[in-house]
């Protein structure tokens, strides 16, 4: 699996960081919208709610109360829309 150097891609598009079997099904626990992997922090980011969730020991920690507010540099400019290529 190639690690993309560009800004984090949506998990669904092979954004790396976690196994595909997880990338295929994981969503933000609050918004139920797609997550993206933030390489810099090794965390899962939910743009919908502006929070990030850590991955500890390979285990994604997706408790709503453990989400951290995004720093400014973590926010996406919005050019990566969350439309998925699969049927919705």
């Amino acid at each position, binding site marked *: 699996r190639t690690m993309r150097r560009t800004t984090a891609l949506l998990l669904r598009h092979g954004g790396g960081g976690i196994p595909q079997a997880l990338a295929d099904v*994981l969503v933000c626990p609050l918004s139920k919208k797609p997550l993206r992997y933030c390489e810099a922090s090794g965390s899962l980011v939910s743009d919908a709610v502006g929070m990030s969730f850590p991955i500890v020991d390979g285990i994604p920690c997706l408790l709503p109360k453990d989400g951290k507010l995004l720093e400014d540099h973590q926010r996406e400019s919005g050019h990566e829309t969350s439309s998925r290529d699969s049927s919705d």
Partner: protein
Amino acid sequence: SGFKQVREDEKSKLVGNVFSSVASSYDVMNDLMSAGLHRLWKDRLVSGAQSITPYGDSLFLPDSSDFFSRLISKLNPFPGMKHLDVAGGTGDVAFRVVERIKSVSHRATQGTLTDMEEDTHIYVCDINPNMLEVGKKRAAEKGYNEEQCLSWVQGDAEALSFEDGSMDGYTIAFGIRNVTHIEKALSEAYRVLKKGGRFLCLELSHVDVPVFKDIYDIYSFSVIPAVGELVAGDRQSYQYLVESIRRFPKQEKFAQMIQEAGFEAVEYENLVGGVVAIHSGVKL
């Protein structure tokens, strides 16, 4: 009858403490609560004979692993399925699902790995990271990590981080009684299941069988907390656990709640006279 009234925010803290306190003896605790009875009574009652394992209203005491086996049978796992097990961080249900699928698959294909089998994936979601660590370790010991069909996620049954309609099956074993808002857990289960997906819940339930009910009450309220004191040095947590079982909705009421979440073909099966019950439903 003197149950402690527990506020919602207190409940999740108490539950958290209970599990921190007993995480290492979790299996022992469940054994105590449900079928551990058999460890005390089996020899005397059954005296050497193989224990009978009928399912349905019965006083005979199957091994606790029979409860899980029954759950898996009802789930009817198939190769290629995506299955979510909630609150089963230590892997009790997940491993059995994997084994069952492997045996089903091997019988069908004489051992060659099919595409379907490779697509099989079991997701284990638990609110407690310690449980998940235990599960991961056990999976490694069993050699499952090479197969990569298990994933471990920390999450809340009331706010699952799985996509709508992504799962063929959903199980929660001995976990839903610890959820603060059961309706939320049920609606989340409904949300993540695909059409045709099955919901299954294995949980300590209510005994109405005369005489046995009284024995069970004495056992629960006197013996279990005392043993909890001995085993874990923590009488209060076990007291809380016993009371939480009594507070949990009765079989019919819980079945109704499952129906209200949208499930159909809702039914339940009592094991050991209702000490344990398996509730099931289908998302149509």
